[in-house]
């Protein structure tokens, strides 16, 4: 099948950008979205044109490297699916697909569909870890954690840091990303010791990185390819409230 593409092309951060029309020909229904873009780039290279720049790594939906807006929705039409796991069988011959990069002040554009997500690293560096000297590996059952709590922590830890929550939020807020890490660590005994300082530091880093605040609309949860729930943001707000009282 053939699909028409409208792809955001922008040579660099300061260069003007806009949608450019392409047609991907001979697209197989079994191709992934990325393979379709690869085929378009091969055509562009053969013609001596600049290929469409995009970042990708595992192509298995677990690294979070490739993330774009597809027809106005982060990661495209399928719920809980990264765009690299979107397959062309989702489309029909003659369809038009609009592809744009994440738009956020905290994610400055590098080129075409590639944005700089260093701001997420800044947030993690502010407190998304446990600074506990672990020593030798201890017995796995030495610290008992109820299965339900471990499951909840794992649900939060599923975040792959792709940035879809920021891209889908009207305020370009990083609340879901930040809260997923805060919740993950605050549920586990290893993370609870530093919970008050962590939540304050990570929220400050989130704000100073240029993200907006949370309006509690939940678009982030709906577009998250890992289904990170809005309850993480409630937990972050609760942890912040507790931290304020703990510091007094």
């Amino acid at each position, binding site marked *: 099948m053939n699909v028409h593409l409208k792809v955001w092309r922008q040579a660099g951060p300061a260069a003007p950008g806009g949608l450019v029309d392409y047609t991907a020909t001979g697209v197989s229904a079994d191709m992934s979205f990325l393979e379709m873009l690869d085929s378009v780039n091969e055509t562009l290279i053969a013609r001596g044109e600049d290929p469409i720049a995009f970042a990708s790594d595992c192509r298995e939906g677990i690294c979070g490297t490739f993330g774009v807006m597809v027809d106005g929705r982060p990661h495209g039409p399928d719920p809980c699916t990264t765009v690299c796991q979107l397959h062309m069988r989702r489309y029909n011959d003659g369809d038009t697909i609009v592809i744009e990069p994440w738009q956020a002040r905290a994610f400055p554009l590098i080129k075409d569909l590639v944005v700089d997500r260093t701001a997420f690293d800044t947030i993690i560096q502010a407190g998304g870890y446990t600074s506990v000297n672990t020593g030798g590996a201890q017995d796995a059952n030495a610290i008992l954690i109820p299965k339900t709590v471990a499951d909840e922590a794992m649900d939060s830890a599923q975040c792959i840091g792709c940035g879809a929550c920021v891209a889908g939020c009207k305020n370009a807020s990083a609340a879901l990303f930040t809260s997923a890490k805060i919740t993950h660590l605050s549920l586990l005994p290893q993370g609870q010791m530093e919970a008050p300082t962590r939540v304050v530091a990570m*929220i400050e880093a989130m704000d100073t990185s*240029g993200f*907006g605040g949370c309006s509690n609309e939940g678009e982030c949860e709906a577009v998250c390819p890992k289904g990170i729930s*809005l*309850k993480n943001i409630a937990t972050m707000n609760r942890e912040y409230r507790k931290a304020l009282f703990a510091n007094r």
Partner: protein
Amino acid sequence: MTSLKALSTSVGSKFLVALTGLSLVGFLIAHLIGNLLLLAGPDTFNAYGHALISNPLVIPAEFGLLGLLLLHIYKALRHVLLGRRARPHRYTMRQWAGGPSRKSWSSTTMAVSGVILLIFLVTHIATFKFGPYYPSADEGVRDLSRLVQEVFSSPGYVVFYVVAMGIIGMHLRHGISSAFQSLGLMTPGWTSAVLSVGLGLAVILAGGFALIPVWVYLFL
């Protein structure tokens, strides 16, 4: 971290929006109960109005409400402006996500509905609090009931009030449950209950306030 600084972060600011908003909802509940006394007859309503205005705490309470309102507006506007600044370039194409998203016309128009409600509030206070003074048969008691009946004898005023109450309902539909989420009180077990109570309270308040001008126009 000082408390003041803590309340100026994006999360701290939303604490204040939530706390001031819920306080104003508390005021609205009390205001509606008071207003519904109009249905019990003019004397009861006038006596209630007189008792309220004679209370020495009414002036501090009014300043308190004004403070809550100004803080709510300041923090909410700042939140909106920060959001705008966080996305300098808009998408060419945008879709609502659907699914578990709580995005609604109510949530997307919070700033607009807030500004309309502010304009309504100024008109409302000018019309009633600072409106014409009609003395009642009781010495020193203002005949507020007569003023209400005069104002709501105009169909234009009735429509204006009913529309304004619809807008307040929209504002509260997102606002009440959002406040609980902002304060971290929305735990998984309570989420659906909080969303339902938020919606129910928004409908009761908007419907209750809208009932009064319609009732007065039709039956008084």
